[in-house]
Structure formats: structure tokens, C-alpha cells
């Protein structure tokens, strides 16, 4: 009976500690918007694509001038 109570108390307290740790302590520093990484990554990709467009335009211009055969 003592062991039963011991494990009951351990798991009850453990359960509350886990909920407190995850939902209160870790909540603010760790939880972010669902697109937290995506937003930055997409911005970076857009910038890269813009640069790619620029170099493409430059090449097209050079082609039109006859610089590239």
C-alpha cells in the first residue's frame, strides 16, 4: 500500500511538474508562430530569385548586343 501511494504521489507531482515546465516555463521562450522559420526562409529565397532575375536580365541584354554567341 505504501508503494502504491509512493508511486501515486510521484506520478501526480511529476505530471504537474511536467505540465508546469512545458506549458508555463518553456512556453514563452520556445513557442513561436507556425511559420517562424518559413517566413525568413521564403524571404531569403525571394531575394536570391530577384538576384537571379537580375543576372538573367544582364545576360539577355548581353545576348541582344551580340556579346554571347
Amino acid at each position: 500500500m505504501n508503494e502504491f501511494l509512493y508511486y501515486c504521489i510521484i506520478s501526480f507531482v511529476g505530471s504537474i511538474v511536467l505540465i508546469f515546465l512545458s506549458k508555463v516555463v518553456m512556453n514563452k521562450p520556445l513557442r513561436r508562430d507556425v511559420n517562424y522559420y518559413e517566413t525568413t526562409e521564403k524571404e531569403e529565397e525571394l531575394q536570391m530569385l530577384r538576384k537571379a532575375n537580375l543576372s538573367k536580365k544582364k545576360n539577355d541584354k548581353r545576348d541582344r548586343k551580340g556579346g554571347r554567341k
Partner: protein
Amino acid sequence: MSWNNLHPGLVMILFGIIILALPEKCRKYLTLAGSVCAFCVFWMLDSHSTLPFKVTDNLTLQLIDTNGVSMVFLMVFVSIGVINAIYAVDLQNKWEAGITCIYAGSNMGIVLAGDLISFIVFWEISAFTSTYIIYARHCRRSSRAAFRYVLVHAFGGNMLLAGILVQIFHNGIGLANLSGNMHGAAFWLILIGVGVNAAIPPFNGWIADAYPEATIPGTVYLGSYTTKAAIYALITFFSGTHMLIYVGAFMAIFAACMALLENDIRRLLSYHIVSQLGMMVASLGVGSEIGVDGASAHAVTNIFFKGVLLMCAGSIMKATGTCKITELGGLRKKMPITAFCFLISSMAIAGFPFLSGFASKALIMESLHEYGEGFPAIMITIAGVGTLLSITLKINYFVFFGKCDRQVKVQNATNSMTTAVVIGTIMSIVIGMKPELLYQQLTYKTMVDPFSIPHIMEYVAIIAGGAIPFFFMLSIMKPHDEISMDFDWFYRRPLVKIIEALSKGLYRVFGWFDRHVLHGVQFFGTGLGNPYLWTEKSGNLKIKSMSFENEDRLIGDVIQVIVALFAVMILISIYVIKM
């Protein structure tokens, strides 16, 4: 060559290559045939099985070494291979099917390897094939996740390779336990290399980052092999390293907390892979016979119940198009078989009596108590409560059994998916009801009686005590559509910026050198190649007067300069030679 020397892993790899080579219509049959053949080949192996591969006269690799631990892991790998193949039969294309066969085969190769070289070769094949499985979803997120995954595993693989080379240099190519050599470089390099795959913090971020981004069957395959092969490696190299008891206990608690924050079922389950791995790491850290058997037994049961949980998550995703708890609810009536199997497996992972997790956790707890490690044992117990909260209660309540106001549209999962889920669940029930079937397969054949009244009461107490706060704090337990940051944040945010800044800095430095060195070379080239310029354009009158154009130049001055330069060159040469 006799039948007992066939290698199940190589059989799977061969089938994988054939699937890739033949047309799509052969894929279904070959995927099933490959896993069934590997399963049959496994049962032909015995203690005399051997497969030497001669590389040179002085180097022969041993591809089959059937020590006890190998056979336990191989048994579960070939069994789950068949279940996974049934699950995936209608979901994969030939490329994914072929690569998953090679991936499964390489993991069988890891656990059968009899030397360090064949071990690392199969380890690397596993890393690269698993990368493709993540990439195989062919979307933006999965390709980025696959890229991060391969970078992390390339780091781990290189650490492991460096450690193995050091180990081979000192002790030869045999697999050896390193727990007594904590001061050696090989110990730490191999620990980091294996630790990456075993998701030991801070190397755990890749699991929750990559696994949910793979295809539906891909996640199921990944959840079965990579981390369990790492546990095999930890048992082989590090069983008895007591530091790992505390590392494992921390892993188990940390991942259980992270799982409570998650909303995506597949991310949540990924954290529970880490938590369960923590329990295995703690057990193997004890290093006793019961500790090693506890880690192996939990790996076996974990592959079955975690496999079913991931399969159910895949079925939910296929049926509803989402895995987010906030977008699901009331699925018990719409997906009754999935709901039932998920419930059974979630009870098994939480250690409910008469289910498989109960049988294997009994060995882990027994090993920790036997060693006298009270604090880690309490931490592992609390981690078990975390599992109960986040899987058994949270997912079952919010996804299947709780009240739901929203209407979730559901398409039927395929028959093959349902069949695999049911087989996996039956395995969990059979092992739970007859744990001696599992214990007999273990390395040291440790027998405990999990069905003693005190032991059952202990788990009933843990489950009852752990469940009460959940229902009292139901509103807090409600998931939110957010993500939680993990150690992967370091390589997704600051490390990216640091590498970007470094590359920009290097680009500027090398750009400066490029420009100035070219100018310098041009200057010296033009000057040295044209002695006329040395003299004629010099601002020094004496040098200018030496010009070849100057017919009145003093030849004595020219000779003087040449002799002086020659003397300087000789002095420099003497100095360099003496150095």
C-alpha cells in the same frame, strides 16, 4: 556458400536495386518479396553464420557476426520490414520503394557488421538513403529538411569515421566496448557520431525537423531503423558508461516536455522517439546484463508500438490531409480501426499492464533499481508520465475520443495500411501478454515477472496519479497551432547568419587579394620582363643613368649593383639552408 550464410541486409539491398531497375508495375510485388525474403533469410542464420569479404591480402571484412545483441535487433528489423512493406505497398513510387529497401537493408547491415569498416560503410549508406526518403515528398519543406538532415548526419558520420580510424589505429578493426577508455579521442568521437543518430541532446533537433517532412510511409520507415541502429551501436560501444544513465534520463524528460508543447502529431511522436530512446540509453548505461537486455527489449517493443503510432498518424494524414491536432477531432467514429489501434499502442508506450511497453519497461526499471540509481529511475518514471499525458491522453482525447464541434472530412485509408496497423497492434498485445517470448530472444535471456501484483499496482498508481492533473487542467492542455524551437534553432538561425557573415568576409578578403595580387603580378611581370622600365623610368638618377638607352652609362655602377644583388641572394640562400 550455404544458406545460413546469406545476409538479410544484402538481400534487401539487392531487391532495392532491382526495384529501381525494373518498371513501376513490378514495384508492389518486389517490395513485399524483398522484405519477406529478408525475413526468411534471418531465420536461416545461426551462431556459425559468417560472410567474410576479402578486400586485400591483409584485410578481410566480416559482414555477418551473429552475436546476441545483433540477432535481437535483426529480428525486429526484418519483422517490422514486412509490416512496413505492407503499409507502404499502395503509397510509394518505385524510386521511394527501392531506396527504402536499400535503407532497411543497410540498417540490417549495421547490426550484423562484424568489424568497424563494414559498420561505417552500412552506416553511411543508411544516412544517404534516409536523406532521399525525406526528400521524396518533393515539396519545398521536405527538400530543405532533407538538406539539413544530410548536413547533420554528415557531421555525425565524419565524427564517427574519425573515431573509428583512431580506434582502428590503436586496437584494430574489431568492434569493442569503449566504456573503459573515456580519456581516449576514439571514445568521444564515436560517442558524438553515434549520439547524432541516437538523438542525444543537443543533437536531437533533426528528428522533429526531418521526420514529419518525409512521405507517409517514409516517416514510418525512418522511425523504425535509424535511431534503433544507433541504440545497437551504443550498446556495442558504450554499454556500462555510467554517464549515459543521466544523459538518458535527461533525454527522456526533456523530450517528454517538448512533446507536450506540440500540435503536429508526427512532430509530437518524433519527440517521443527521443524520450523512449532516453530510457534505452539510461538502461544501457547501467551496463549490467539486465541493463543491456532492457535497452534491447525496449528497442524491440518500441519499434512495434511506435511503428503503429506513426502508421496511424500517416493514416490520419492520408484520410484528412492534416496531422494537426487543432484541425482534427472526433475521429473515433470515422476511423474506428485506426482509433482502436492507436489507443492500444498509446497504452503500450505508456506502460499499461499486459501490453508490450509494460514488459520492456519492467526490465529498464529493474536495471536502474538494481544499480541503485534512485534519481534517474524517478526521472524515467516521470518521463513515462509525460508519455501518458501527451500521447495516451492528449492525442486520444483531442483527436479520437473527445467532443468535437468541427466537421472533419475523412477519406478511407487503404486496406494495406489498415492491415499493417492491425498486425503491429497484435504484436504489441502478444508481447505484452507473453513477455517471455521477448525475454527468450534477448542477449542474456533475463527473465523478470512483470505480472507480480506489486509491479502491476506500481503501474496502475503511475497511470492514475499521472492522469488526474490532465483532466483538471484540460484547458491548459489544449494544443495551439504553433511550433516549438529546439536545438535545430542553432543551425537554422544563428549558424546560418554566422556562415553567411564568414562567407561574405572571406569573399571580400579574397576579392581584395585577387584584385591586388593581380595588380602586383601585372606590375612585377611588366617590370621584370622589361629591364628598360627599371632604369629609364626610375626616379633615382643613378639608376636612370644605367639605362641601356644611355650610351654614357657607367658600366662600373651596373656591375656594382649586379654583384650586390648576387651577394644578397647568396646570403638569403645560406640563411634558408641553415634554417
